[in-house]
Protein backbone atom coordinates (compact mmCIF):
# COMPACT_ATOMS: atom_id res chain seq x y z
CA UNK A 1 0.00 0.00 0.00
CA UNK A 2 1.30 3.41 -0.96
CA UNK A 3 1.82 5.90 1.86
CA UNK A 4 3.08 8.98 0.10
CA UNK A 5 3.78 12.02 2.26
CA UNK A 6 5.59 15.27 1.63
CA UNK A 7 8.68 13.69 3.25
CA UNK A 8 8.79 10.59 1.08
CA UNK A 9 12.28 10.21 -0.45
CA UNK A 10 12.47 9.97 -4.23
CA UNK A 11 14.97 7.93 -6.22
CA UNK A 12 16.27 9.07 -9.59
CA UNK A 13 17.00 6.70 -12.44
CA UNK A 14 20.78 7.17 -12.44
CA UNK A 15 21.70 4.63 -15.07
CA UNK A 16 19.47 2.26 -17.00
CA UNK A 17 21.65 -0.82 -16.60
CA UNK A 18 19.00 -3.51 -16.28
CA UNK A 19 15.87 -3.99 -18.35
CA UNK A 20 13.15 -6.39 -17.28
CA UNK A 21 10.54 -7.88 -19.58
CA UNK A 22 7.29 -8.90 -17.88
CA UNK A 23 6.88 -11.47 -20.66
CA UNK A 24 4.09 -13.49 -19.08
CA UNK A 25 2.38 -10.64 -17.30
CA UNK A 26 0.69 -11.98 -14.16
CA UNK A 27 -0.20 -15.27 -15.81
CA UNK A 28 1.26 -18.38 -14.24
CA UNK A 29 0.45 -22.08 -14.20
CA UNK A 30 0.95 -22.00 -10.42
CA UNK A 31 -0.79 -19.96 -7.72
CA UNK A 32 1.91 -19.49 -5.12
CA UNK A 33 0.55 -18.29 -1.82
CA UNK A 34 3.36 -15.77 -1.31
CA UNK A 35 3.39 -14.21 -4.78
CA UNK A 36 3.80 -10.45 -4.45
CA UNK A 37 1.82 -9.83 -7.64
CA UNK A 38 -0.65 -12.68 -7.04
CA UNK A 39 0.07 -14.49 -10.30
CA UNK A 40 -2.22 -17.36 -11.27
CA UNK A 41 -3.72 -19.05 -14.37
CA UNK A 42 -6.57 -16.54 -14.22
CA UNK A 43 -4.88 -13.27 -13.17
CA UNK A 44 -4.76 -11.26 -16.37
CA UNK A 45 -4.07 -7.81 -14.90
CA UNK A 46 -0.93 -7.94 -17.01
CA UNK A 47 -0.88 -10.01 -20.21
CA UNK A 48 1.76 -11.59 -22.42
CA UNK A 49 4.26 -9.33 -24.14
CA UNK A 50 4.41 -9.61 -27.92
CA UNK A 51 7.64 -10.28 -29.78
CA UNK A 52 7.25 -6.89 -31.44
CA UNK A 53 7.07 -5.09 -28.08
CA UNK A 54 10.25 -6.81 -26.97
CA UNK A 55 12.02 -5.96 -30.22
CA UNK A 56 11.01 -2.31 -29.97
CA UNK A 57 12.21 -2.07 -26.39
CA UNK A 58 15.45 -3.84 -27.31
CA UNK A 59 16.19 -1.26 -29.94
CA UNK A 60 15.53 1.54 -27.48
CA UNK A 61 17.59 -0.20 -24.80
CA UNK A 62 20.67 -0.48 -27.00
CA UNK A 63 20.51 3.27 -27.65
CA UNK A 64 20.47 3.79 -23.89
CA UNK A 65 23.33 1.39 -23.18
CA UNK A 66 21.46 -1.26 -21.18
CA UNK A 67 23.84 -3.82 -19.70
CA UNK A 68 21.60 -6.86 -19.14
CA UNK A 69 18.08 -8.25 -19.54
CA UNK A 70 15.75 -10.22 -17.27
CA UNK A 71 12.64 -12.14 -18.40
CA UNK A 72 9.96 -12.74 -15.81
CA UNK A 73 6.23 -13.18 -15.22
CA UNK A 74 4.15 -15.05 -14.19
CA UNK A 75 5.78 -18.03 -15.79
CA UNK A 76 7.78 -16.80 -18.82
CA UNK A 77 7.63 -20.14 -20.64
CA UNK A 78 3.82 -19.86 -20.91
CA UNK A 79 4.39 -17.12 -23.49
CA UNK A 80 4.74 -18.96 -26.83
CA UNK A 81 7.12 -16.24 -28.06
CA UNK A 82 9.58 -16.55 -25.18
CA UNK A 83 12.18 -18.62 -27.04
CA UNK A 84 12.30 -16.27 -30.06
CA UNK A 85 12.43 -13.29 -27.66
CA UNK A 86 15.51 -14.71 -25.94
CA UNK A 87 17.05 -15.60 -29.29
CA UNK A 88 16.61 -11.98 -30.41
CA UNK A 89 17.99 -10.58 -27.15
CA UNK A 90 21.13 -12.68 -26.72
CA UNK A 91 23.05 -10.95 -29.52
CA UNK A 92 22.66 -7.68 -27.56
CA UNK A 93 23.40 -8.74 -24.01
CA UNK A 94 23.08 -11.28 -21.22
CA UNK A 95 19.67 -12.76 -20.40
CA UNK A 96 18.27 -14.18 -17.18
CA UNK A 97 14.98 -16.12 -17.19
CA UNK A 98 13.07 -16.44 -13.92
CA UNK A 99 11.03 -19.64 -14.13
CA UNK A 100 9.24 -22.07 -11.84
CA UNK A 101 10.83 -24.91 -13.82
CA UNK A 102 7.62 -26.91 -14.19
CA UNK A 103 6.78 -26.43 -17.87
CA UNK A 104 10.15 -26.76 -19.61
CA UNK A 105 10.26 -28.60 -22.92
CA UNK A 106 13.32 -30.22 -24.50
CA UNK A 107 12.72 -28.49 -27.82
CA UNK A 108 12.83 -25.03 -26.19
CA UNK A 109 15.93 -25.83 -24.18
CA UNK A 110 17.71 -27.15 -27.26
CA UNK A 111 17.01 -23.91 -29.11
CA UNK A 112 18.16 -21.81 -26.16
CA UNK A 113 21.28 -23.92 -25.82
CA UNK A 114 22.13 -23.25 -29.46
CA UNK A 115 21.42 -19.54 -29.02
CA UNK A 116 23.73 -19.19 -26.02
CA UNK A 117 26.48 -21.22 -27.65
CA UNK A 118 26.44 -18.67 -30.47
CA UNK A 119 26.47 -15.69 -28.12
CA UNK A 120 29.18 -13.90 -26.18
CA UNK A 121 26.70 -13.48 -23.37
CA UNK A 122 25.39 -15.64 -20.54
CA UNK A 123 21.92 -17.12 -20.36
CA UNK A 124 21.05 -17.62 -16.71
CA UNK A 125 18.09 -19.62 -15.47
CA UNK A 126 16.72 -18.81 -12.06
CA UNK A 127 14.41 -21.52 -10.77
CA UNK A 128 12.13 -20.76 -7.84
CA UNK A 129 11.72 -23.46 -5.22
CA UNK A 130 10.83 -22.52 -1.70
CA UNK A 131 12.67 -25.11 0.29
CA UNK A 132 14.77 -28.24 0.01
CA UNK A 133 11.81 -30.61 0.38
CA UNK A 134 8.15 -30.90 -0.53
CA UNK A 135 7.12 -30.34 3.08
CA UNK A 136 8.42 -26.78 2.97
CA UNK A 137 7.77 -26.00 -0.67
CA UNK A 138 4.41 -27.50 -1.58
CA UNK A 139 2.23 -25.72 0.97
CA UNK A 140 3.46 -22.46 -0.58
CA UNK A 141 3.75 -23.31 -4.27
CA UNK A 142 1.15 -26.09 -4.64
CA UNK A 143 0.90 -29.88 -4.60
CA UNK A 144 3.73 -31.74 -6.30
CA UNK A 145 5.47 -28.53 -7.34
CA UNK A 146 8.64 -29.54 -5.51
CA UNK A 147 9.02 -32.74 -7.53
CA UNK A 148 8.08 -31.01 -10.77
CA UNK A 149 10.55 -28.14 -10.26
CA UNK A 150 13.28 -30.61 -9.35
CA UNK A 151 12.65 -32.44 -12.63
CA UNK A 152 12.97 -29.07 -14.37
CA UNK A 153 16.34 -28.52 -12.74
CA UNK A 154 17.43 -32.00 -13.81
CA UNK A 155 16.43 -31.17 -17.38
CA UNK A 156 18.29 -27.83 -17.31
CA UNK A 157 21.42 -29.60 -16.06
CA UNK A 158 21.10 -32.23 -18.79
CA UNK A 159 21.16 -29.44 -21.36
CA UNK A 160 24.31 -27.99 -19.80
CA UNK A 161 22.71 -25.06 -18.00
CA UNK A 162 23.62 -24.40 -14.40
CA UNK A 163 20.54 -22.80 -12.84
CA UNK A 164 20.52 -20.49 -9.86
CA UNK A 165 17.99 -21.74 -7.32
CA UNK A 166 16.09 -18.99 -5.57
CA UNK A 167 14.06 -19.63 -2.47
CA UNK A 168 11.84 -17.24 -0.63
CA UNK A 169 12.66 -17.49 3.03
CA UNK A 170 9.68 -18.69 5.02
CA UNK A 171 11.80 -20.00 7.89
CA UNK A 172 13.83 -18.49 10.69
CA UNK A 173 17.30 -17.06 9.94
CA UNK A 174 18.86 -19.62 12.23
CA UNK A 175 17.76 -22.40 9.86
CA UNK A 176 19.43 -20.90 6.77
CA UNK A 177 22.61 -22.96 6.90
CA UNK A 178 20.71 -26.23 7.41
CA UNK A 179 18.36 -25.38 4.54
CA UNK A 180 21.24 -24.55 2.20
CA UNK A 181 23.10 -27.70 3.17
CA UNK A 182 20.06 -29.89 2.55
CA UNK A 183 19.42 -28.10 -0.73
CA UNK A 184 22.95 -28.80 -1.95
CA UNK A 185 22.43 -32.51 -1.33
CA UNK A 186 19.09 -32.54 -3.11
CA UNK A 187 20.50 -30.71 -6.11
CA UNK A 188 23.41 -33.12 -6.39
CA UNK A 189 20.88 -35.95 -6.55
CA UNK A 190 19.44 -34.48 -9.78
CA UNK A 191 22.80 -33.93 -11.45
CA UNK A 192 23.49 -30.39 -10.25
CA UNK A 193 26.97 -30.81 -8.82
CA UNK A 194 27.69 -27.07 -8.58
CA UNK A 195 24.72 -25.72 -6.64
CA UNK A 196 24.09 -21.98 -6.90
CA UNK A 197 21.63 -20.89 -4.25
CA UNK A 198 20.09 -17.55 -3.42
CA UNK A 199 17.75 -16.84 -0.51
CA UNK A 200 15.21 -14.07 -1.06
CA UNK A 201 13.21 -12.16 1.52
CA UNK A 202 9.42 -12.28 1.51
CA UNK A 203 7.77 -9.29 -0.13
CA UNK A 204 4.66 -8.72 1.96
CA UNK A 205 2.27 -7.49 -0.69
CA UNK A 206 -0.13 -9.26 -3.07
CA UNK A 207 -0.91 -12.85 -2.07
CA UNK A 208 1.75 -12.79 0.67
CA UNK A 209 -0.11 -10.02 2.48
CA UNK A 210 -3.14 -12.32 2.58
CA UNK A 211 -1.10 -15.36 3.67
CA UNK A 212 0.68 -13.63 6.53
CA UNK A 213 0.42 -9.89 6.94
CA UNK A 214 1.33 -6.79 5.02
CA UNK A 215 3.64 -3.95 5.99
CA UNK A 216 2.97 -1.83 9.03
CA UNK A 217 2.53 1.89 8.56
CA UNK A 218 5.99 2.55 10.00
CA UNK A 219 7.73 0.16 7.62
CA UNK A 220 8.52 2.92 5.18
CA UNK A 221 11.74 4.59 4.09
CA UNK A 222 12.23 7.93 5.79
CA UNK A 223 14.47 10.82 4.72
CA UNK A 224 16.74 10.02 7.69
CA UNK A 225 17.22 6.47 6.41
CA UNK A 226 18.44 7.82 3.07
CA UNK A 227 21.13 9.98 4.65
CA UNK A 228 24.45 8.40 3.71
CA UNK A 229 22.68 5.50 2.02
CA UNK A 230 23.97 4.44 -1.41
CA UNK A 231 20.81 4.64 -3.51
CA UNK A 232 22.41 2.61 -6.27
CA UNK A 233 21.50 -0.40 -4.12
CA UNK A 234 17.87 0.14 -5.09
CA UNK A 235 16.63 -1.46 -8.30
CA UNK A 236 14.61 1.62 -9.24
CA UNK A 237 17.85 3.62 -9.58
CA UNK A 238 19.14 1.40 -12.40
CA UNK A 239 16.22 -0.51 -13.88
CA UNK A 240 12.78 -0.42 -15.50
CA UNK A 241 10.24 -3.10 -16.52
CA UNK A 242 8.51 -3.43 -19.87
CA UNK A 243 4.91 -4.70 -19.46
CA UNK A 244 1.98 -4.98 -21.85
CA UNK A 245 0.54 -1.87 -20.18
CA UNK A 246 3.66 0.27 -20.43
CA UNK A 247 6.95 0.68 -18.62
CA UNK A 248 6.89 0.18 -14.86
CA UNK A 249 9.36 1.15 -12.17
CA UNK A 250 10.20 -2.34 -10.87
CA UNK A 251 8.91 -5.92 -11.13
CA UNK A 252 7.69 -5.94 -7.53
CA UNK A 253 5.29 -2.98 -7.52
CA UNK A 254 3.33 -3.79 -10.67
CA UNK A 255 -0.01 -3.73 -8.87
CA UNK A 256 0.56 -0.21 -7.56
CA UNK A 257 -1.16 2.45 -9.64
CA UNK A 258 1.90 4.71 -9.49
CA UNK A 259 4.26 2.00 -10.81
CA UNK A 260 3.46 2.56 -14.48
CA UNK A 261 5.57 5.49 -15.64
CA UNK A 262 5.17 5.76 -19.42
CA UNK A 263 4.77 3.91 -22.68
CA UNK A 264 8.45 3.89 -23.69
CA UNK A 265 11.75 3.74 -21.81
CA UNK A 266 12.39 7.39 -22.58
CA UNK A 267 9.06 8.32 -21.01
CA UNK A 268 9.74 6.30 -17.87
CA UNK A 269 12.75 8.09 -16.45
CA UNK A 270 11.08 10.17 -13.77
CA UNK A 271 12.10 9.97 -10.10
CA UNK A 272 10.14 7.41 -8.10
CA UNK A 273 8.82 7.92 -4.55
CA UNK A 274 9.85 5.21 -2.08
CA UNK A 275 6.37 5.20 -0.58
CA UNK A 276 5.72 1.46 -0.42
CA UNK A 277 6.29 -1.19 2.19
CA UNK A 278 8.06 -3.28 -0.46
CA UNK A 279 10.57 -0.42 -0.89
CA UNK A 280 11.44 -0.98 2.76
CA UNK A 281 12.38 -4.61 2.04
CA UNK A 282 14.39 -3.55 -1.00
CA UNK A 283 16.20 -1.00 1.19
CA UNK A 284 16.94 -3.61 3.85
CA UNK A 285 18.25 -6.31 1.54
CA UNK A 286 19.52 -4.40 -1.52
CA UNK A 287 19.47 -5.62 -5.11
CA UNK A 288 17.32 -8.60 -4.27
CA UNK A 289 16.20 -9.01 -7.86
CA UNK A 290 19.60 -9.13 -9.59
CA UNK A 291 22.09 -11.98 -9.88
CA UNK A 292 25.16 -12.29 -7.61
CA UNK A 293 27.47 -11.62 -10.59
CA UNK A 294 26.09 -8.08 -10.87
CA UNK A 295 25.20 -7.45 -7.27
CA UNK A 296 26.00 -3.85 -6.43
CA UNK A 297 28.40 -3.16 -3.64
CA UNK A 298 27.91 -0.46 -1.09
CA UNK A 299 31.56 0.55 -1.11
CA UNK A 300 34.05 1.54 -3.72
Amino acid at each position, binding site marked *: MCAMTSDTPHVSLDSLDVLWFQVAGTICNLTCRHCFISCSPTNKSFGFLSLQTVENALQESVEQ*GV*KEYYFTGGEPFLNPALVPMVERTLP*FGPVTILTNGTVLKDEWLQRLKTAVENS*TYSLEFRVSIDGPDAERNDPIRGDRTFDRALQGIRKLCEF*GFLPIITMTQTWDDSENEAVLSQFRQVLRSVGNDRPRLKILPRIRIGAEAERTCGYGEFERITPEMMEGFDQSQLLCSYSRVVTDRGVAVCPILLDSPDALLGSTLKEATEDFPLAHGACYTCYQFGSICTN*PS*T*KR*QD*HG
Partner: protein
Amino acid sequence: MSKGKGEPRREVFALFGGVYSNAPALQAAIEDALQQEATRFYCLGDLGAFGPHPDRVFPLLHEHNIETVQGNYDDSIGNGLDDCQCGYTDPRDNHFAQISYDYTLRKTSEANRKWMRDLPKEIRFEYAGLRFLLCHGSPRRTNEFLWESTTSTAFLNRLADEYEADVILATHTGLHWQRKLSDGRLFVNVGVLGRPANDGQCCVWYTLLTVEHNGNTAPRLTVEFRPVHYDHERLAAEMRSEGLPDEFVETILTGWWTTCMEVLPVKERLRGHF
Protein backbone atom coordinates in the same frame (compact mmCIF):
# COMPACT_ATOMS: atom_id res chain seq x y z
CA MET B 1 62.82 13.42 -29.23
CA SER B 2 59.84 14.42 -31.36
CA LYS B 3 59.39 12.86 -34.75
CA GLY B 4 57.91 14.39 -37.87
CA LYS B 5 54.35 13.89 -39.04
CA GLY B 6 54.00 10.78 -41.18
CA GLU B 7 56.89 8.98 -39.56
CA PRO B 8 55.72 5.69 -38.01
CA ARG B 9 55.80 5.51 -34.25
CA ARG B 10 55.11 2.68 -31.88
CA GLU B 11 54.56 2.51 -28.15
CA VAL B 12 54.08 -0.66 -26.12
CA PHE B 13 52.10 -0.40 -22.89
CA ALA B 14 52.45 -3.11 -20.24
CA LEU B 15 49.26 -3.38 -18.18
CA PHE B 16 49.22 -5.37 -14.97
CA GLY B 17 45.99 -6.26 -13.16
CA GLY B 18 45.52 -7.43 -9.55
CA VAL B 19 48.87 -8.53 -8.09
CA TYR B 20 47.41 -10.09 -4.92
CA SER B 21 50.87 -10.18 -3.28
CA ASN B 22 52.25 -12.39 -6.04
CA ALA B 23 55.62 -10.63 -6.23
CA PRO B 24 57.38 -13.40 -8.22
CA ALA B 25 54.70 -13.19 -10.92
CA LEU B 26 55.02 -9.40 -11.03
CA GLN B 27 58.80 -9.74 -11.36
CA ALA B 28 58.41 -12.26 -14.21
CA ALA B 29 55.81 -10.09 -15.96
CA ILE B 30 58.07 -7.02 -15.82
CA GLU B 31 60.95 -9.01 -17.29
CA ASP B 32 58.73 -10.37 -20.05
CA ALA B 33 57.35 -6.92 -20.86
CA LEU B 34 60.85 -5.47 -21.06
CA GLN B 35 61.81 -8.22 -23.49
CA GLN B 36 58.73 -7.32 -25.52
CA GLU B 37 59.98 -3.73 -25.67
CA ALA B 38 57.33 -2.27 -23.42
CA THR B 39 58.10 1.33 -22.58
CA ARG B 40 55.24 2.35 -20.31
CA PHE B 41 54.14 0.33 -17.31
CA TYR B 42 50.87 0.54 -15.39
CA CYS B 43 49.20 -1.43 -12.63
CA LEU B 44 45.44 -1.31 -12.16
CA GLY B 45 45.36 -2.02 -8.44
CA ASP B 46 44.68 -4.70 -5.82
CA LEU B 47 48.29 -5.11 -4.76
CA GLY B 48 47.57 -7.28 -1.74
CA ALA B 49 45.32 -10.29 -1.02
CA PHE B 50 45.56 -14.01 -1.56
CA GLY B 51 49.35 -14.38 -1.55
CA PRO B 52 52.17 -14.07 1.04
CA HIS B 53 54.45 -11.23 2.14
CA PRO B 54 52.55 -8.24 0.72
CA ASP B 55 55.43 -5.80 1.20
CA ARG B 56 57.50 -7.55 -1.48
CA VAL B 57 55.36 -6.08 -4.24
CA PHE B 58 56.07 -2.40 -3.59
CA PRO B 59 59.81 -2.21 -4.35
CA LEU B 60 59.13 -3.70 -7.80
CA LEU B 61 56.50 -1.05 -8.53
CA HIS B 62 58.82 1.75 -7.42
CA GLU B 63 61.93 0.40 -9.14
CA HIS B 64 60.19 0.23 -12.51
CA ASN B 65 58.16 3.43 -12.13
CA ILE B 66 54.89 1.59 -12.51
CA GLU B 67 52.02 4.04 -12.26
CA THR B 68 49.30 2.44 -10.16
CA VAL B 69 45.54 2.84 -9.77
CA GLN B 70 43.96 2.26 -6.36
CA GLY B 71 41.95 -0.97 -6.22
CA ASN B 72 39.30 -1.75 -3.61
CA TYR B 73 41.85 -3.83 -1.68
CA ASP B 74 44.34 -0.96 -1.64
CA ASP B 75 41.66 1.40 -0.39
CA SER B 76 40.76 -1.06 2.37
CA ILE B 77 44.32 -1.89 3.48
CA GLY B 78 45.47 1.69 3.08
CA ASN B 79 42.66 3.02 5.23
CA GLY B 80 42.48 0.07 7.63
CA LEU B 81 38.86 -0.78 6.79
CA ASP B 82 37.17 -3.88 8.18
CA ASP B 83 37.14 -5.88 4.97
CA CYS B 84 38.38 -5.92 1.38
CA GLN B 85 35.17 -4.58 -0.24
CA CYS B 86 35.38 -7.46 -2.69
CA GLY B 87 31.63 -7.86 -2.44
CA TYR B 88 31.31 -11.62 -2.08
CA THR B 89 27.86 -12.82 -1.06
CA ASP B 90 28.70 -16.41 -0.16
CA PRO B 91 29.64 -16.88 3.52
CA ARG B 92 32.36 -19.35 2.52
CA ASP B 93 33.95 -16.80 0.18
CA ASN B 94 33.79 -14.14 2.84
CA HIS B 95 35.36 -16.49 5.37
CA PHE B 96 38.45 -17.10 3.21
CA ALA B 97 38.60 -13.47 2.05
CA GLN B 98 38.65 -12.32 5.67
CA ILE B 99 41.53 -14.64 6.63
CA SER B 100 43.52 -13.29 3.71
CA TYR B 101 42.53 -9.70 4.45
CA ASP B 102 43.47 -9.84 8.12
CA TYR B 103 46.82 -11.38 7.19
CA THR B 104 47.54 -8.73 4.54
CA LEU B 105 46.56 -5.86 6.81
CA ARG B 106 48.83 -7.20 9.55
CA LYS B 107 51.78 -7.72 7.20
CA THR B 108 51.68 -4.47 5.22
CA SER B 109 53.98 -1.72 6.47
CA GLU B 110 52.62 1.67 7.43
CA ALA B 111 54.69 3.30 4.67
CA ASN B 112 53.13 1.06 2.03
CA ARG B 113 49.68 1.58 3.48
CA LYS B 114 50.13 5.32 3.23
CA TRP B 115 51.33 4.97 -0.37
CA MET B 116 48.18 2.98 -1.22
CA ARG B 117 45.95 5.51 0.50
CA ASP B 118 47.22 8.19 -1.86
CA LEU B 119 46.85 6.24 -5.10
CA PRO B 120 44.45 7.69 -7.68
CA LYS B 121 41.11 6.03 -8.49
CA GLU B 122 41.89 6.41 -12.17
CA ILE B 123 44.70 7.39 -14.49
CA ARG B 124 44.02 9.32 -17.67
CA PHE B 125 46.36 10.32 -20.47
CA GLU B 126 46.33 10.89 -24.18
CA TYR B 127 48.51 9.12 -26.67
CA ALA B 128 48.32 9.25 -30.47
CA GLY B 129 45.16 11.29 -30.14
CA LEU B 130 43.49 8.54 -28.08
CA ARG B 131 42.08 9.22 -24.64
CA PHE B 132 43.12 6.43 -22.26
CA LEU B 133 41.25 5.73 -19.03
CA LEU B 134 42.77 3.25 -16.58
CA CYS B 135 40.58 2.14 -13.69
CA HIS B 136 40.18 -0.83 -11.36
CA GLY B 137 36.64 -2.24 -11.72
CA SER B 138 34.88 0.17 -14.01
CA PRO B 139 35.16 3.90 -14.70
CA ARG B 140 32.21 4.55 -12.40
CA ARG B 141 32.89 2.19 -9.51
CA THR B 142 36.11 0.70 -8.17
CA ASN B 143 34.54 -2.63 -7.27
CA GLU B 144 32.17 -3.14 -10.18
CA PHE B 145 32.61 -6.51 -11.87
CA LEU B 146 32.71 -6.24 -15.65
CA TRP B 147 32.51 -9.87 -16.78
CA GLU B 148 32.75 -10.66 -20.45
CA SER B 149 29.48 -12.58 -20.56
CA THR B 150 27.38 -10.07 -18.60
CA THR B 151 28.59 -6.77 -20.00
CA SER B 152 26.86 -5.66 -23.18
CA THR B 153 28.69 -3.75 -25.86
CA ALA B 154 25.98 -1.07 -25.69
CA PHE B 155 26.81 -0.54 -22.01
CA LEU B 156 30.55 -0.25 -22.71
CA ASN B 157 29.85 2.26 -25.46
CA ARG B 158 27.83 4.28 -22.97
CA LEU B 159 30.71 4.21 -20.46
CA ALA B 160 33.13 5.33 -23.19
CA ASP B 161 30.75 8.20 -24.06
CA GLU B 162 30.04 9.28 -20.49
CA TYR B 163 33.63 9.04 -19.30
CA GLU B 164 35.06 10.49 -22.52
CA ALA B 165 37.52 7.70 -23.24
CA ASP B 166 38.66 5.88 -26.37
CA VAL B 167 40.47 3.11 -24.54
CA ILE B 168 39.18 1.83 -21.19
CA LEU B 169 41.43 -0.52 -19.23
CA ALA B 170 40.19 -2.38 -16.13
CA THR B 171 40.82 -5.50 -14.01
CA HIS B 172 39.02 -6.66 -10.80
CA THR B 173 37.28 -9.80 -12.12
CA GLY B 174 40.44 -11.88 -12.45
CA LEU B 175 39.66 -12.88 -16.04
CA HIS B 176 41.12 -11.14 -19.10
CA TRP B 177 39.02 -10.25 -22.12
CA GLN B 178 38.55 -7.46 -24.65
CA ARG B 179 35.75 -5.91 -26.70
CA LYS B 180 35.92 -3.63 -29.71
CA LEU B 181 33.55 -0.69 -29.31
CA SER B 182 32.01 1.78 -31.72
CA ASP B 183 34.17 4.38 -33.53
CA GLY B 184 37.35 2.35 -33.10
CA ARG B 185 37.18 2.49 -29.31
CA LEU B 186 38.28 -0.39 -27.11
CA PHE B 187 37.64 -1.98 -23.71
CA VAL B 188 40.20 -4.37 -22.21
CA ASN B 189 40.10 -6.28 -18.96
CA VAL B 190 43.83 -6.79 -18.56
CA GLY B 191 43.56 -9.88 -16.31
CA VAL B 192 45.43 -10.40 -13.05
CA LEU B 193 48.91 -11.48 -11.96
CA GLY B 194 47.73 -12.69 -8.59
CA ARG B 195 46.13 -15.98 -9.47
CA PRO B 196 45.52 -18.14 -12.55
CA ALA B 197 42.56 -17.48 -14.85
CA ASN B 198 40.48 -20.51 -13.78
CA ASP B 199 41.56 -22.42 -16.86
CA GLY B 200 43.57 -25.28 -15.39
CA GLN B 201 46.89 -23.60 -16.20
CA CYS B 202 49.27 -22.39 -13.53
CA CYS B 203 50.39 -19.31 -15.44
CA VAL B 204 48.91 -15.87 -14.78
CA TRP B 205 48.23 -13.11 -17.31
CA TYR B 206 48.95 -9.52 -18.17
CA THR B 207 48.30 -7.39 -21.24
CA LEU B 208 50.52 -5.73 -23.79
CA LEU B 209 48.81 -2.97 -25.72
CA THR B 210 50.71 -1.75 -28.76
CA VAL B 211 49.78 1.53 -30.42
CA GLU B 212 51.16 2.19 -33.89
CA HIS B 213 50.53 5.52 -35.58
CA ASN B 214 51.95 7.89 -38.10
CA GLY B 215 49.86 11.00 -37.71
CA ASN B 216 48.07 10.48 -41.03
CA THR B 217 45.85 7.48 -40.40
CA ALA B 218 43.93 6.24 -37.40
CA PRO B 219 46.20 4.68 -34.77
CA ARG B 220 46.37 0.89 -34.84
CA LEU B 221 45.78 -0.85 -31.51
CA THR B 222 46.92 -4.40 -30.88
CA VAL B 223 46.06 -6.27 -27.69
CA GLU B 224 48.09 -9.27 -26.63
CA PHE B 225 47.31 -11.24 -23.50
CA ARG B 226 50.63 -12.63 -22.26
CA PRO B 227 50.91 -15.74 -20.08
CA VAL B 228 53.40 -15.37 -17.23
CA HIS B 229 55.20 -18.47 -15.98
CA TYR B 230 56.86 -18.16 -12.62
CA ASP B 231 57.86 -20.37 -9.72
CA HIS B 232 54.31 -21.04 -8.56
CA GLU B 233 55.34 -24.02 -6.46
CA ARG B 234 57.60 -21.80 -4.40
CA LEU B 235 54.77 -19.29 -3.98
CA ALA B 236 52.48 -22.11 -2.84
CA ALA B 237 55.05 -23.24 -0.28
CA GLU B 238 55.34 -19.70 1.07
CA MET B 239 51.57 -19.39 1.29
CA ARG B 240 51.44 -22.61 3.31
CA SER B 241 54.19 -21.50 5.65
CA GLU B 242 52.35 -18.21 6.23
CA GLY B 243 49.19 -20.09 7.17
CA LEU B 244 47.10 -18.90 4.23
CA PRO B 245 44.09 -21.06 3.27
CA ASP B 246 44.75 -24.39 1.54
CA GLU B 247 41.98 -23.50 -0.90
CA PHE B 248 44.06 -20.56 -2.18
CA VAL B 249 47.18 -22.71 -2.42
CA GLU B 250 45.24 -25.25 -4.48
CA THR B 251 44.32 -22.55 -7.01
CA ILE B 252 47.98 -21.57 -7.43
CA LEU B 253 48.96 -25.21 -7.96
CA THR B 254 46.11 -26.33 -10.22
CA GLY B 255 44.98 -23.22 -12.09
CA TRP B 256 41.36 -23.73 -10.99
CA TRP B 257 39.51 -21.33 -8.73
CA THR B 258 38.21 -22.92 -5.56
CA THR B 259 36.59 -19.87 -4.01
CA CYS B 260 34.67 -16.78 -5.13
CA MET B 261 32.57 -18.90 -7.47
CA GLU B 262 29.24 -17.35 -6.62
CA VAL B 263 30.00 -14.05 -8.30
CA LEU B 264 30.83 -15.78 -11.60
CA PRO B 265 28.22 -15.58 -14.36
CA VAL B 266 27.19 -18.95 -15.76
CA LYS B 267 29.37 -18.84 -18.88
CA GLU B 268 32.53 -18.12 -16.90
CA ARG B 269 31.51 -20.61 -14.21
CA LEU B 270 31.05 -23.44 -16.69
CA ARG B 271 34.57 -22.92 -18.04
CA GLY B 272 36.01 -23.66 -14.60
CA HIS B 273 36.32 -26.95 -12.77
CA PHE B 274 34.30 -26.14 -9.63
